[in-house]
């Protein structure tokens, strides 16, 4: 028998077009997602050189980052103009480029529009065992379905458009094995925050992470997407989860999934992708899931993780000097005092959305907490579905009513308050419990203070007006 191989090695080997002497490979790209922010210069480059898109059929474009999440059409169904001139230009440029180059496109006004990383899996565009790229670092999310997926820069976007390949050097591999059941109120978001707290924001640098173990196997695809999405916050360019029956059940019947005999052949091939027994990783990290509690960030790096039962850490408690300095700076920016209980920190904003946590299961989890309660006075709470289809599904289930009745705003799909590129921003000095993935300085707006949390924890924070332990709601009390 051949040497045991990891999932990563199997996908890599199946995509080598040519190998150079220095180990760099020309890797074929099966799927390319395009959005308005990182593509205009790539299309311009093609145009300037008289080049075409090699495989329009393997490419899919959708606008997301710049779109306002307020209604997009007026009462007569006419498209409303976008106030920010530069945003409007980027969006119009994408429309013009996809028309000129013949790229399949989901328009801002289409029911299927949404965040690229929500749309890809939802449409069955993302498939196991494929290589998938997008000019966006959270492309890592698609690894949840067993696709080798990673973010690329604009020159690489142009390279893929023109050649359907990339020149790449192989990465090292890291296994993160998570075993055991999750406690009440503990979600996939808590799992990945815990992992990043453990390995550090640079822990995965140079690696592709494969998540294994019973905790991952028991997760839905939506939960796995949340986990893999934040691989990049742990420093890894890509995350991977072996495709299994859960994956196949999720993909079957999606608009772009294979059908008939091709479906059967695909599933047979996909079943062979899981890492072989005895395959070796460059590094393995073991995590006991029973130790994970609802978690959140206190600082300005995604590795600044504490359990909700914890306190704001004392910078002096960190072993190395650079970490102490970083923590002091973080706390200064965050306006927090060491020793404060996390549950005593008040918030003015709550954001439920982003490619990390805007799928139907996320909205259901938040709605359970919101149901029959009300957003605290002085808190602005946004619920932004990840796609038009998620929105429609949530409305069919009555989740929109629950949110609106509880005082949440129910919005149109897009990246929204995840990054300060569209009108949804957190004002300077104000604090937000956010289900997004980055708590960097200024990420949600200049001077904005972000705490990364799960959807249920975000809803709990909205109700209480301060960061809260969702388990109090799970057991029926509100403190």
């Amino acid at each position, binding site marked *: 028998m051949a040497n045991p191989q990891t999932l990563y090695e199997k996908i890599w080997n199946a995509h080598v077009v040519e190998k150079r002497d220095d180990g760099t490979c020309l890797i074929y790209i099966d799927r390319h997602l395009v959005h308005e922010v990182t593509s205009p210069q790539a299309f311009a480059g093609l145009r300037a050189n008289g080049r075409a898109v*090699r495989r329009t059929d393997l490419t899919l474009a959708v606008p997301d980052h710049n779109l306002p999440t307020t209604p997009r059409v007026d009462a007569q169904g006419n498209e409303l103009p976008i106030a920010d001139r530069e945003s409007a230009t980027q969006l119009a440029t994408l429309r013009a480029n996809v028309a000129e180059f013949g790229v399949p496109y989901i328009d801002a006004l289409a029911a299927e529009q949404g965040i690229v990383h929500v749309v890809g899996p939802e449409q069955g565009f993302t498939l196991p065992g494929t290589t998938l790229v997008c000019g966006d670092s959270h492309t890592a999310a698609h690894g949840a379905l067993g696709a080798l997926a990673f973010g690329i820069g604009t020159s690489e976007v142009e390279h893929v458009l023109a050649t359907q390949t990339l020149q790449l050097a192989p990465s090292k591999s890291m296994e993160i094995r998570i075993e055991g059941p999750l406690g009440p109120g503990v979600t996939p978001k808590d799992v990945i925050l815990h992992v990043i707290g453990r390995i550090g924001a640079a822990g995965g640098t140079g690696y592709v992470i494969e998540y294994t173990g019973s905790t991952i196997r028991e997760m839905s695809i939506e939960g796995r997407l949340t986990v893999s999405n934040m691989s990049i916050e742990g420093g890894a360019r890509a995350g991977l989860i072996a495709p299994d029956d859960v994956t196949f059940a999720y993909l079957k019947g999606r608009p772009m999934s294979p059908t008939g005999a091709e479906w059967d052949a695909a599933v047979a091939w996909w079943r062979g992708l899981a890492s072989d027994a005895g395959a070796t990783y460059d590094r393995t990290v073991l995590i006991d899931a029973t130790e994970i509690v609802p978690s959140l960030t206190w600082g300005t790096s995604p590795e600044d993780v504490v359990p909700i039962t914890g306190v704001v850490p004392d910078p002096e408690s960190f072993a190395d000097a650079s970490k102490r300095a970083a923590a002091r700076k973080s706390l200064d920016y965050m306006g927090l005092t060491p020793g404060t209980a996390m549950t005593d920190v008040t918030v003015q904003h709550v954001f439920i959305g982003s490619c990390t946590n805007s799928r139907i299961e996320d909205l259901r989890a938040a709605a359970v907490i919101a149901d029959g309660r009300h957003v605290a006075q002085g808190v602005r709470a946004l619920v932004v579905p990840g796609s038009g289809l998620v929105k429609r599904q949530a409305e069919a289930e009555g989740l929109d009513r629950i949110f609106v009745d509880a005082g949440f705003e129910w919005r149109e799909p897009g990246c929204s308050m995840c990054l300060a590129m569209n009108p949804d921003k957190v004002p300077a000095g104000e604090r937000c419990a956010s289900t997004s993935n980055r708590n960097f300085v200024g990420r949600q707006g200049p001077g904005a203070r972000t705490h990364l949390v799960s959807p249920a924890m975000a809803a709990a924070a909205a109700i209480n007006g301060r960061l809260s332990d969702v388990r109090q709601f799970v057991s029926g009390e509100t403190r």
Partner: protein
Amino acid sequence: MQPVKQVSGRAYPWGAKNVDTDVIIPAHWLKTVTREGLGKGAFETVRAEPGNIFDDPRYAGSPVLIAGDNFGCGSSREHAAWALADLGITAVIAPSFSDIFSGNAFKNGIVTVVLPQDAIDRLIEVAKTDPVTVDLETMTVTTPFQDRFGFDLDPFRRQCLMEGLDEIGLTLARDAAISGYEAKVAGERPWLAKRAA
């Protein structure tokens, strides 16, 4: 891309260390849809200072920039390279560069030359009055005063720069291999090629 065999002319004698991509091009310029025109935003915060070298008529249009350690650190934005290119800079000389920045610079026909700090100090002196020359053929930086500093360059990058080969052009030349791969996969994994929708 334009071949770059030699970059010769005046140089901005800057020398600043840890110049991050926010300094090279502030974030509010990122909403652009073109590679061109970013020169206007290049070093915006530096240029807000009176008497800065970027607005000094002696250095206007210089093709070379001399900087300190860790040039181009920070975000991966390719806009930093585009801004320099738009300013007319085709070579940056510094003791070290962020990896991502030098990759982006290379993709946009900008040479990043690594020289030790004492060579940088000398070049900054010379650049105040005289031109410097970066030569890819001989892999040296020279001045009109017998200075001659050798540097290393990845052979693949050097060849691309000197022949004006862009990476896309090089890969397109591998078309037969790519088409061969596509044909093979169309037989083995037919579900990849076509989608129902």
